[in-house]
């Protein structure tokens, strides 16, 4: 039977398949592309543009990891996943990295066999309603019809919240964000609930964003972050420290524009980050200047944020808790040392 397995494995490898061995990094290097799981379309986070190129906050994280591994941000193969298929995709080795605004929870981290490499966006589940309903607080939502996107923790949080407040609701459970929005827009539900970033992303694509309001309640903690399969620490480290590099770069003032000149900076941490000094890259199994490539290709955390979801984008999300710890947020990277 062992022999049969090897045979099938060999046959399958020969036939257009991807093998997920223990050492993901070697795997990725030999494939020449990074398999990255993203959403099937959520404005600002990951969505195909008119020419069919993936754009967004999560997409840029994939690009950052690709830059770290290959020195080139474009060696990414994007696999769109739905709320249902994302975990199977990662477990089965179809993707090497899942950057798909996924909430870090105990059971996902421990039971499902994943490893969250950090948090790239601190979120929480909220509610959006029409202004003309006159609702000021989520506790006034008794009996409302609520649009939910399925395949997420959202439906459990929602049921819990309404039970805790002794209220009832009618769910309209929808498969994708686009359809949930269409339902909400046409008045098929009073409330749309999802992560507040998602609400903002949805609100801007409504015909009259001003007529809708996001309620103050945040009914859950939703730390969204990229994740990898459990068990390959080297690969987990690469993803984790790529994320940390983005944050640290912002802290140290390294940007896409000045990264070349910063390479010869006097600050030892900048030098270590960009590979002008020390051998942090080699420790990860990457090139010496992996940090440089990351920042050069996608910019630091703040640049990615402002490019896709920040105040000057249609989403217009303020940094809030996602600001650096030095400016009142909770974004904090361990030191590069």
């Amino acid at each position, binding site marked *: 039977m062992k022999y049969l397995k090897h045979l099938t494995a060999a046959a*399958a*490898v020969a036939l257009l398949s991807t093998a997920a061995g223990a050492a993901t990094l070697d795997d990725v290097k030999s494939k020449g592309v990074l398999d990255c799981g993203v959403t*099937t379309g959520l404005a600002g986070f990951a969505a195909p543009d008119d020419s*069919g190129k993936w754009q967004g906050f999560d997409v840029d994280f994939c690009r950052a990891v690709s830059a770290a591994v290959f020195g080139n941000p474009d060696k990414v193969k994007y696999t769109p996943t739905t709320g249902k298929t994302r975990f199977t995709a990662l477990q*089965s080795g179809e993707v090497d990295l899942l950057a798909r605004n996924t909430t870090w929870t105990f059971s996902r981290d421990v039971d499902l066999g994943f490893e969250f490499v950090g948090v790239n966006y601190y979120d929480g589940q909220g509610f959006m309603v029409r202004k003309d309903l006159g609702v000021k607080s989520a506790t006034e939502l008794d009996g409302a019809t609520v649009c939910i996107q399925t395949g997420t923790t959202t439906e459990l949080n929602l049921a819990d919240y309404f039970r805790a407040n002794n209220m009832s609701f009618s769910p309209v459970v929808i498969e994708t964000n686009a359809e949930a929005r*269409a339902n909400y827009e046409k008045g098929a539900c009073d409330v749309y609930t999802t992560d507040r970033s998602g609400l903002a992303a949805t609100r801007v694509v409504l015909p009259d964003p001003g007529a809708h309001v996001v309620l103050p309640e945040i009914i859950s903690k939703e730390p969204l972050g990229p994740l990898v399969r459990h068990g390959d620490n080297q690969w987990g480290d690469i993803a984790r420290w790529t994320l940390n590099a983005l944050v640290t770069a912002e802290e140290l003032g390294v940007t896409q524009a000045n990264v070349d000149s910063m390479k010869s900076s006097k600050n030892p941490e900048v030098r270590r980050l960009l590979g002008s000094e020390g051998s942090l890259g080699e420790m990860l199994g990457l090139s010496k200047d992996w940090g440089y490539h990351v920042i050069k290709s996608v910019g630091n955390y703040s640049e990615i944020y402002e490019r896709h979801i920040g105040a000057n984008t249609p989403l217009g999300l303020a940094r809030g808790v996602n600001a650096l710890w030095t400016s009142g947020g909770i974004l904090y990277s361990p030191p590069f040392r």
Partner: protein
Amino acid sequence: MADRTYEIGSHPDLPPPVSETGVIGWLKHNLFSTWYNSLGTIFILYLLYLALPPLVDWTLLSAVWGGNSNQECWAVTREGACWGFIDNRFSFLMYGFYDSDAYWRPNLVGIIFILAMIPVLFRSIPGGNVAAVFLIFVFPWITVSMLYGPVNMTTMGSSVGVTIYSLVLLAGLGLGWHGRKNLNLLLMGIGFGVAYFCAIALFLRWGFGLKVIGTDKFGGLMLTLILATVSIGVSMPLGIVLALGRQNQKMPIVRTLCIGFIELVRAVPLITVLFMAQFMLPLFLPEGVDFDNIVRALVGMSLFAAAYMAEVVRGGLQAIGKGQYEAADALGLNYFLKMRFIIMPQALKIVIPGIVSTFIGLFKDTTLVLIIGLFDFLQTGVSSLADTKWNGLEHEAYFFIGLVFFVLCFGMSRYSMYLEKKLDTGYKR
């Protein structure tokens, strides 16, 4: 005039009454023959009056041609369609994420396919047999190479591998020729089979030396067509084997297994088969082996189509008279020769319309892959609506996608009817 009398038999022929000829007669016969027919006519005319003018107005008269976002269109009018959406998103709808400088690759494959299909579809054009052999044995690999590019095979990574494959190819050819000379079918089959396999491997390795474009880039109408044609192509041989197994009276176990598979698959919705391919296939395979998303969908759809194909082929087998089987037996043909030269050529001819309608069904069903996250034609349209620039244009998206599906499926069903009519004559005495 009126009181003129005629001899019996000498009355001149009069023209038919006005109410029976010309426009009035036609109207009377076709639209107002009875009171309920008249009522129906008036009712339908009224419905058409209600439905058609707004439809024409929306799609054509008031429509905004061009326009680079919903706001631009709506600034002109909200009463008409915004076709700039389709225009701007056209290549995305057609090719998905495929590299825009490589659109010629799927286009060329499409042209080759159509050119090769013409003699197969219309028997009056010569070259049908050559084209069929080309379509079955050569075209699939050309398609893979053109769309994907060179396939990276572990056994072919080095020049050593390539050399071994080439040597085996030559050896296979030699063996095949040898078998052919000695009329040894077994040797011939093995020899040419091995040679064919090696040739494919070498060809895929070369792949026209094009740039690799991963399956993640496949999308839009192109992906829909790939999914439908590949699964119908794979399901054909599978379906024939299953149908033969089901018809085989001498092997009860094989028969039971075939019936079990066919009935099970036909009983469940495609979406559960896709879920199975998505969630269970990775569990079935050994650690470290996994296909990508599209291949998984293909596996599910092919198995699904095979069950339906088996029933279509079975219909053909049952339509062949018992005398044909007996005549073949009387000639002393064994099972394979009997099936290959007597039964199958007749049966497959009968079932072509059935195959076409299975194909139409499958073609429409490919839209379900959006539920497992593939960007097929429908999903590219739906996800385009998620763009801030294009949201709120559902009607345009559905109208366009529906129209394309309609044109393709309707064309195929007409062809199937034409074929049915043509094939029918052969069986009438």
